């Protein structure tokens, strides 16, 4: 429409010039009406979709929670990983309050939320190697306090019976330590044995040297 209008304006003076002002007004009106109509239509569509595909929870919370280590230790000052995820999603908490997740966790959260990575907040604790709780079964008096404190039900026992930790379920949260009246729980760092050993990160190759400059000690060295 606009193109034709311009064409018309450069017509030779002898040609009959139509009433441009009237034409322009009609066109603008048509455009405004069309846009309004389309806007309304899409608005209704979106409104319908929002109701039709309504989700109960914020999907961002689930994504954040998937990154958190699920230790349920409460070091972030929230009562568990889920509440902390909710707090992050509502920008109430920072992304650097999870010591078990450590630097890698903070980086992953920063990437997910489009934020700058930052160092771990020292107030929440420091990143430690993964440990499991071990109960000294001779010293245990069977008070069940640690069983009640364990967020993942990883301690087995009954009143006045010896307690023990199910190692494979223990997240290493330290929450069983404070309630123990006889201090019989120790956090033991799990060092990998041969079957869960990991290949180290390769070192850059330097010219003139062997990849791994090992010498062969003679037999009986060990």
């Amino acid at each position, binding site marked *: 429409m606009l193109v034709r209008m311009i064409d018309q304006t450069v017509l030779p003076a002898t040609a009959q010039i139509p009433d441009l002002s009237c034409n322009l007004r009609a066109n603008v009106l048509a455009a405004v009406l069309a846009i309004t109509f389309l806007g309304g239509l899409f608005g209704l569509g979106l409104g319908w979709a929002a109701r039709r595909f309504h989700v109960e929870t914020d999907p961002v919370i689930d994504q954040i929670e998937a990154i958190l*280590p699920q230790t349920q230790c409460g070091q972030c000052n929230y009562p568990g990983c889920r509440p902390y995820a909710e707090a992050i999603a509502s920008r109430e908490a920072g992304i650097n309050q999870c010591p078990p997740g450590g630097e890698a966790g903070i980086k992953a959260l920063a990437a997910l939320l489009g934020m700058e990575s930052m160092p771990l907040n020292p107030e929440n604790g420091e990143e430690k190697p993964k440990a499991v709780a071990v109960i000294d079964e001779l010293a245990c008096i069977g008070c069940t306090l640690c069983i009640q404190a364990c967020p993942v039900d990883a301690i087995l026992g009954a009143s006045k019976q010896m307690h023990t930790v199910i190692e494979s379920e223990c997240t290493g949260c330290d929450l069983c330590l404070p309630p123990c009246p006889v201090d019989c729980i120790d956090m033991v760092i799990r060092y990998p044995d041969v079957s869960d050993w990991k*290949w180290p990160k390769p070192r850059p190759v330097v*010219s003139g*040297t062997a990849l791994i400059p090992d010498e*062969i000690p003679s037999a009986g060295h060990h």
Partner: protein
Amino acid sequence: MHIDHAEQARTAGEQLHHFHGGLRLRHNKKNSCETPLENAPLPSLFYVPLLQQYGKEAEVTVATGQKVLKGDAIGCFGHLGSGCVHAPSSGVVKALVRRPISHPSGSDGWCVVIEPDGLDQWKELEPLTDWIKADPALLRQKIRDSGIVGLGGAVFPTAYKADDASSRGIHTLILNGSECEPYISCDEMLMREQPDSIVLGARILQRAVGATRTVIAIEDQMGAVNHALKQAVENVGDKSIKIVKVTTIYPEGGEKQLIQVLTGLEVPAGGRPADLGLLCQNVATASAVAQAVVEGKPLVERIVTVTGNGIRKPRNLVARVGTPISDLVDQCGGYTNDVARLVLGGPMMGYSLNSDANPVIKAANCILALTELDIRQSQAEMPCIRCGECARVCPAVLLPQQLDWLIRNQQWDDAADCGLTDCIECGCCDMVCPSHIPLTSWFCFGKSELRSLAIERKQAETAKHRYEARDARLLRIKQERRQRMDEKKRAIKDKAEKQKKLAEAISRSRARQDRNE
């Protein structure tokens, strides 16, 4: 599976195909093949590692001071349907110690120390002489009890593989005699010197897993082997066994690559050869199966190639598991003066050993001593120039340069999407990289990171699940308690109301009585 594929897999070995990439490497096998097989002598002490197969260490079943006979179980696995680790000779158990166990980590593992008494006396053997009529399940049980693992180097329990294959129904057994790595010649020597044992093993395995035919794949450069095996097959007159010569291109000895050469089909990513109706075993494994079934002997020894420019007289030795590697080296004339590194396995996929006091293990196909000249890097590592050579030679049809970039940037999920787990760590990409990037080391690192990440995710999920279950339980208990309290309160209230009503009724009746009176 596609029907055409099923048909195509049945014709394995009829027509040869190609796999993507690969390299033609200098063979370097001749010097270790010139001397016939020799038995390694009894060492003064055996150090038998309890980690002898893919997975976890076995649990020790003997005590210090106990006398054992050759073939007695000294450690057993309680999982994967696998058998035991056996005493390599008769003698006395001296101790259970932690020491280096010939593992890429170089770390320590539990070893049973046995002092041999020199008699080398077998335990009472229980052979299955009429294996032709034996129940296949019984044969598999025998394979399991004899502690047989894949002797190609992967040490996956053979019985587990056989059980899986027979439950899924397979038609062709492939015996892998094409050891593709340079220097390694243990399988070649075995096929040359004990072809009858391999053919017997093939027939037993065929019965144990319900296969109808066997293809023995050898390299086209093994002339003597072809002759010996053909003779052995003719001797037993078994028409179902076929010997196929495949072109020597590294890594055609890899299970997936060999299957592709023989059938033209790829084993699906994350799948197994049984998906195509195939079972692949090493020739040495087949020989071990024959000995286990027909003679009743558990797996306590294997052929080890001791070779490399750092060894004076390279050769193949029959060595018992647990023999210190230094004993084998001594038998091969010792080290040359310029020896610089000891490798377990071949030059492409092997790993450095930190000491020659390490024991021989079931996975030890080759002890390679390299000299200073062999291992010297000519150039320092440079940035990737995206030339694509690595992708051209990759037998798994991956994009190594892309994977390297993703691993360096710790994009684990993307690396997994790009097929990192399909990498067979063959080292071809390393070899051709003009920038000398240690690609395979990065892939090993990346793969173990992926593995541990998967474990961590699973643990996190379990923890989350348990936490939620506990939360729900605590909530339920709270609600139940409240409900009980409410009921109690209501009961008290009801009682009070009842008494009130009763009192009213009594007073009413009294009033009536009073009125009547």
